[in-house]
């Protein structure tokens, strides 16, 4: 995470706008296209590129050994994402292209098509309207490093590359059960993927060259080539095990393809941690503040500091503290705004916890302009909360804090004199947890893109989950 290096005072609306509209990625894509094509006249080229508006369409390559299920996965992904599928067959059987006719002749004679011709075919096909508008999925191409490099020199870069992998023995056996439907071209399997309708069952064909020997030969060649193709796509590659049910492979592939990669966009985290009392919010906030140098803003702490420092707001807050009543929202917001408007919060980002407690406070926060860009809900079951809080003790002599289960005192003598904070009594805790859960449904609805984290684990695991939620771009919702 990068805070902006410029020392200028940038008004916070600018980075917020930039994040919401993904300005950095927009500019980066445009610049990439400019550098790849290097047109003589950049401005009309840029206008055209912006009109196309295809930064986010799927550009996927699926590779894998024979019988791994590439074509099945590719077809399912196509239907789901509504993109165009490109395989060797449909490139070659394209009737409208002159290059395709040449290739078809070779293909029908079962000779390998030279890479130059193949890549030319791909280039033609990808320049067509539907590939530009809706994205494309390449099935089984590039097979060799030469093809991969040629495609790259043309400026065609996939955004996601999926490599299916499975042990050879599994594949050889699986290939024996392969059957093809001659009409739709869909691939079925005698054991794993048998079509339910009996008409399809009747006219399924056995494809050629699926005997064990031939599959083994094809596998040898595949292994020889794939090892050199994989380094061509360093950061966008994912290996998925094909040795599991098709549906599982499909869902893994789908989630991967719909996730965005980490970008270099400058990002000031404004994190909101929500959860019932005892879920670990303060601890996580402290860890985040320490590691990423964010400003840790704890609402309760802020108020106590204001009262202790006897500031103007502190004087207003004190009567509420003395009577043990909740501080009214308006006053709370004033104290918060004062803190969040300071230069270090704006520049470094903040971690907020303890507020908002309910929907009204959340709306007030929004109206003041403090929109968090990552919201986390820490879920902890009630019993764990009780365990964490009711066993807290403090030693009145040394001031050391203990927990009867997680950090017990060393000697019996210390244990004898430990005291419990009245706020940690069972009934009090129960009240506070109920209060939170009453409001949590509303808050969850308001913060639609919030990430739920299981808080019932050790603090460092929870921290890692939160970290990955902050660093990775927010996941796109499946339409």
């Amino acid at each position, binding site marked *: 995470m990068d805070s902006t290096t410029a020392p200028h005072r940038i008004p916070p609306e600018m980075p917020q706008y930039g994040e919401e509209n993904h300005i950095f990625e927009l500019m980066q894509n445009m610049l990439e296209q400019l550098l790849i094509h*290097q047109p003589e006249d950049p401005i009309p080229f840029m206008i055209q590129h912006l009109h196309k508006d295809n930064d986010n369409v799927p550009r996927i390559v699926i590779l894998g050994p024979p019988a791994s299920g590439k074509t099945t996965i590719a077809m399912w992904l196509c239907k789901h994402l509504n993109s165009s599928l490109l395989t060797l067959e449909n490139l070659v059987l394209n009737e409208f292209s002159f290059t395709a006719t040449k290739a078809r002749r070779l293909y029908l004679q079962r000779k390998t098509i030279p890479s130059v011709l193949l890549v030319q075919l791909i280039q033609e096909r990808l320049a067509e309207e539907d590939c530009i508008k809706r994205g494309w999925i390449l099935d089984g191409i590039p097979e060799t490093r030469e093809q991969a490099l040629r495609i790259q020199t043309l400026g065609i870069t996939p955004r996601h590359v999926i490599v299916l992998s499975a042990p050879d023995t599994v594949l050889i056996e699986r290939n024996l059960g392969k059957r093809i439907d001659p009409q739709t071209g869909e691939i079925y399997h005698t054991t794993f993927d048998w079509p339910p309708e009996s008409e399809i069952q009747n006219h399924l064909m056995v494809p050629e060259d699926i005997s064990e020997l031939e599959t083994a030969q094809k596998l040898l060649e595949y292994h020889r080539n794939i090892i050199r193709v994989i380094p061509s796509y360093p950061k966008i590659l994912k290996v998925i095990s094909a040795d599991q049910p098709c549906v599982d492979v499909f869902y893994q592939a789908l989630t991967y393809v719909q996730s965005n990669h980490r970008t270099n966009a400058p990002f000031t985290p404004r994190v909101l941690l929500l959860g019932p009392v005892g879920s670990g919010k303060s601890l996580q906030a402290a860890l985040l503040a320490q590691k990423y140098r964010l400003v840790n803003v704890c609402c309760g702490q802020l108020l106590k500091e204001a009262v202790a420092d006897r500031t103007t707001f502190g004087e207003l807050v004190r009567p509420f503290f003395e009577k043990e009543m909740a501080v009214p929202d308006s006053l709370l917001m004033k104290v918060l705004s004062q803190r969040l408007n300071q230069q270090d919060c704006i520049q470094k980002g903040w971690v907020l916890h303890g507020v908002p407690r309910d929907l009204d406070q959340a709306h007030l926060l929004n109206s003041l302009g403090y929109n968090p860009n990552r919201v986390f809900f820490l879920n902890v079951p009630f019993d764990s909360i009780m365990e964490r809080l009711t066993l807290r003790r403090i030693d009145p002599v040394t001031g050391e804090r203990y927990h009867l289960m997680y950090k017990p005192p060393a000697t019996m003598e210390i244990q004898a004199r430990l005291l419990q904070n009245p706020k940690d009594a069972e009934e009090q805790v129960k009240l506070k947890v109920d209060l939170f859960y009453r409001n949590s449904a509303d808050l969850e609805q308001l913060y639609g893109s919030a990430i739920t984290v299981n808080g019932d684990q050790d603090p460092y695991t929870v921290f890692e989950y939160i970290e990955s939620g902050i660093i990775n771009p927010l996941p796109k919702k499946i339409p």
Partner: protein
Amino acid sequence: METSNRELQAAEYLERHRIKELVSYLTSALLFFRPEKPREYLISLLERLRIAKVTGVAFPFFMDNSNIVAMFEMMDSSGRGTISFVQYKEALKTLGLCTEDGDLKDDGHIITLDKFKEEVNKRMKEIWSAF
């Protein structure tokens, strides 16, 4: 690491068409005006540029005259009407109009508002003519 031929080619392309300044201008405009629909706004900006280039109409500068005057006044804190050479160079660097190598010569004369304005406009024109 030796830069390959294509990398050098790409760098030279960027220089020739002043792509960095253009992208910087576009991003600044976007962040400053914060339009609802960034793409459409970008397209309209680029169209205006294209037309301006073809017809020779005045380019839509990001910093117009009043901004230049305001910047000068910010630097000239004592209100003498002049700024020092160091301030002048820093200002040009901030505007992105002068590279680190500093092809300016300190000719011993003080920099007045007019000279500042003239220099900024001259450099801007130079950049825009490359688009």
